[in-house]
């Protein structure tokens, strides 16, 4: 599998990590497998992952008619334990218990799966002999006990222990009866009594029946002492107990021999479970978020109904509509212009998320996403405050450093996302720099680059695509505003209301850019966000009378 380099900035920008976190396999094996996942550039590997998701999405959808079956699958997955994966001379009881529990739940799981799923994930089961060995005698399916049935000598040993225990109990009872008769002390199962000092010693009480210790000034603490026969039996019991432990160890070693023989098969079972569990979690996630299978090809990068899930969820929470992304990028290098708060950044985030989902082998939040596989993905834009060597750099310096790193190897398929690159330097030079970078990237056939920018008047190139977010719909805004429009009047709305108004009036669709059509929504947006009207009006005046 080919290694894919994803910059931390790209990962953070995409919002992928939180979504990846929400995919939760049920077994320790699935969880471990998930931790090992990295973005892949291997077409076949990814197709295998999507096939598995496809298969299990169908299974889950079909299973909606039999929810109990799905619940049982989850139940058994959750109860599949880790087990010791390296052969041991003698596994201890807990280790054998884990094998037994794994086998039980694994078998139960297989009974709930369709033949197609069993074949796809290569579930097999050849541990019948071990299963029988681990369940000898009377014990529950998911418990483990070294029963008498494992070894006749063990059964005989335990019989001896029972007889000794019985003998000890009989002598103890006799001693307690004698004490009660002679002293009137009834222990009733208590190990000792606290009695007034004047009650003992009782006349005629034989010595050696009671251990008497001072409790306080007025009381004794008395406990029955064992008779000679009890002590002898106790010594016998200790010897039988040693023998019992030795025989139990023999049983453990015998069972361990069986386990070692089947361990390679159990590891295969574990692998099958891990892949099934992770695929099931991905399928559940895909159904929850209405995801679809991406397509890999050499054609243009195409998105239909693309959604950046964090933004979609926020819109849903605020009761405002979410505009999904539709775009077909005929060219590999593209500039996206648009209003402030017009959706440029979300457009880039959507692409970043779709691409990461694709290369992590997941389905994507889009009606259709057709893309290619990249070996490197970089984001260039505002990131966390720089650390280490970069801490001495300005915002612009940091961007240049980011670009140098990203552009170091453009011979491999690379996805570059620029969010308002060079916005902190003077506009004229920034436009030149942006145009030059776009032209430079356009000559590298494996590179796909998208820039969001406000530098609308930069030099254009035929090898670069130019787009704009459609921006404020003035008519729609005027119809919804409770006060004079954004080009006049006072805005006194709270921020949440302002945001809702912007959302209602903004057209977040991506369209071909018209270089002759200026984008002048900034002042209107500033007004909507409650900026002092005098300042906005003055800005409007300066704009109109340069």
């Amino acid at each position: 599998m080919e290694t894919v380099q994803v910059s931390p900035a790209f990962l953070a920008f995409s919002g992928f990590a939180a979504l990846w976190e929400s995919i939760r396999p049920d077994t320790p094996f699935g969880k471990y497998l998930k931790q090992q996942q990295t973005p892949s550039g291997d077409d076949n590997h990814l197709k295998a992952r999507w096939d598995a998701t496809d298969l299990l999405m169908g299974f889950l959808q079909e299973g909606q008619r039999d929810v109990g079956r799905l619940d049982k699958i989850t139940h058994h997955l959750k109860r599949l334990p880790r087990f010791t994966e390296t052969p041991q001379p003698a596994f201890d009881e807990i280790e054998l218990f884990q094998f037994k529990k794994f086998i039980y739940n694994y078998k139960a799981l297989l009974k709930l799966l369709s033949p197609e799923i069993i074949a796809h994930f290569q579930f097999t089961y050849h541990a019948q002999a071990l299963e029988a060995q681990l369940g000898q005698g009377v014990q529950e399916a998911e418990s483990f006990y070294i029963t008498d049935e494992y070894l006749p000598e063990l059964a005989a040993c335990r019989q001896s222990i029972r007889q000794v225990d019985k003998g000890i109990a009989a002598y103890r009872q006799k001693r307690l009866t004698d004490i009660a008769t002679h002293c009137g002390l009834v222990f009733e199962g208590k190990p000792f009594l606290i009695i007034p000092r004047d009650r003992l010693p009782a006349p005629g009480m034989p010595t050696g029946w009671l251990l008497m210790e001072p409790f306080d000034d007025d009381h004794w603490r008395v406990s029955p002492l064992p008779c000679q026969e009890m002590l002898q039996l106790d010594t016998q019991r200790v010897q039988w107990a040693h023998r019992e432990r030795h025989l139990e160890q023999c049983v453990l070693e015998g069972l361990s021999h069986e386990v070692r023989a089947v361990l390679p098969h159990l590891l295969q079972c574990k692998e099958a479970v891990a892949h099934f569990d992770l695929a099931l979690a991905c399928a559940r996630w895909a159904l929850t978020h209405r995801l679809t299978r991406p397509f890999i090809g050499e054609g243009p990068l195409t998105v239909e109904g693309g959604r950046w899930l964090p933004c979609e969820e926020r819109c849903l929470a605020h009761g405002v509509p979410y505009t999904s992304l539709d775009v077909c990028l005929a060219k590999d290098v593209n500039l996206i212009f648009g209003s402030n708060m017009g959706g440029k950044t979300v457009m880039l985030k959507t692409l970043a998320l779709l691409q990461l989902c694709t290369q992590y082998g997941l389905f994507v939040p889009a009606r259709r996403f057709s893309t290619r596989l990249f070996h490197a993905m970089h984001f260039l834009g505002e990131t966390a405050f720089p650390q280490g060597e970069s801490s001495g750099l300005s915002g612009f310096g940091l961007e240049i450093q980011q670009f140098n790193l990203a552009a170091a190897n453009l011979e491999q398929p690379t996805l570059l996302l620029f969010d308002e690159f060079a916005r902190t330097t003077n506009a004229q030079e920034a436009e030149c720099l942006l145009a030059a970078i776009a032209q430079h990237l356009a000559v590298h056939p494996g590179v796909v680059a998208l820039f969001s920018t406000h530098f609308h008047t930069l030099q254009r190139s035929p090898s670069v695509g130019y787009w704009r977010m459609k921006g404020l719909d003035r008519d729609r805004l005027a119809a919804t505003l409770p006060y004079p429009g954004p080009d006049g009047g006072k805005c006194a709305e709270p921020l949440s209301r302002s945001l809702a108004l912007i959302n209602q009036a903004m057209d977040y669709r991506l369209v071909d850019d018209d270089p002759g059509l200026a984008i002048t929504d900034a002042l209107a947006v500033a007004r909507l966000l409650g900026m002092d009207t005098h300042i906005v009006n003055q800005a409007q005046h300066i704009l109109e009378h340069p």
Partner: protein
Amino acid sequence: MNLDTLAGKTTAIAGLEKSSGKTTFLNFLATRLRPEGPLGIFTIGMDGSQKAPGLRDAPIDVKTGDVVITTEPFARSASARLELLEALPGKSALGALLLGRVRREGAVTLVGCEHLGVLSDCIHRVRQAGWTHTVLIDGAVHRMTQVQALTQSPEGGYLMTLQAEPATLQKVARRVKTLARLAVLPVTEASKPNYRLDGPLTETVLSQLPVDITHLSLEDLTKVFLEDATLARLLDRCQLSVRQPLRLHGFVAVLRNLSRVAFQKAVGLDEGMLYFNPFEVA
């Protein structure tokens, strides 16, 4: 106090101080409640690793059907024989932890879980599976916070064991009164104005709280780490409430050179909250 009412419930037995007799009382209570059904007997005390070799907690007597938490080595060396029901997460210094059901009665050393959440899950599991009727938990000296593991259990509560003699009576009585007052704190009502305190109430925290607080809401009574006298003063000037109530069933008192009447007078509790040394006979 009627101990029979604890059957079917989850009860922790905590000690007011060291050697207060909690394990002895637990054994007594186990014998008393076992006829109602098998017991879950757990510990939230220090595990044996924190004690010198040979000084670990004594094994407790268990009967067929009881469920305990111990380690694999302790299970192997116990005179009782255990059927493994669950392997528990984490590993004690004494070995891997397991939940086991007694197949042959005898004695076994209990071992505490590394994390309280595990114990809480075990209590939930044994109840859900119907493995036990009553759950008893051997508490720990000055580890009241661990009683919180009970909060997920229905009708969870705790008993406190104590020893008293004339020389310690006043000190013990103050502590008992304080705990009794804390135990009856009302549950915080969200509708009332409260100063909500998250985390422990220590002398330092108390000194930093606004002086004009009239109602202080605590997480639960185990978050109070004040000297008895300080707490008494606080209770006099401020209403305290808890967001998570815990039920104190009462105190089990072992008295030396002290009459029950004198002790009861000193602590000021009615008989319903007291249980005297069950091993004492007239």
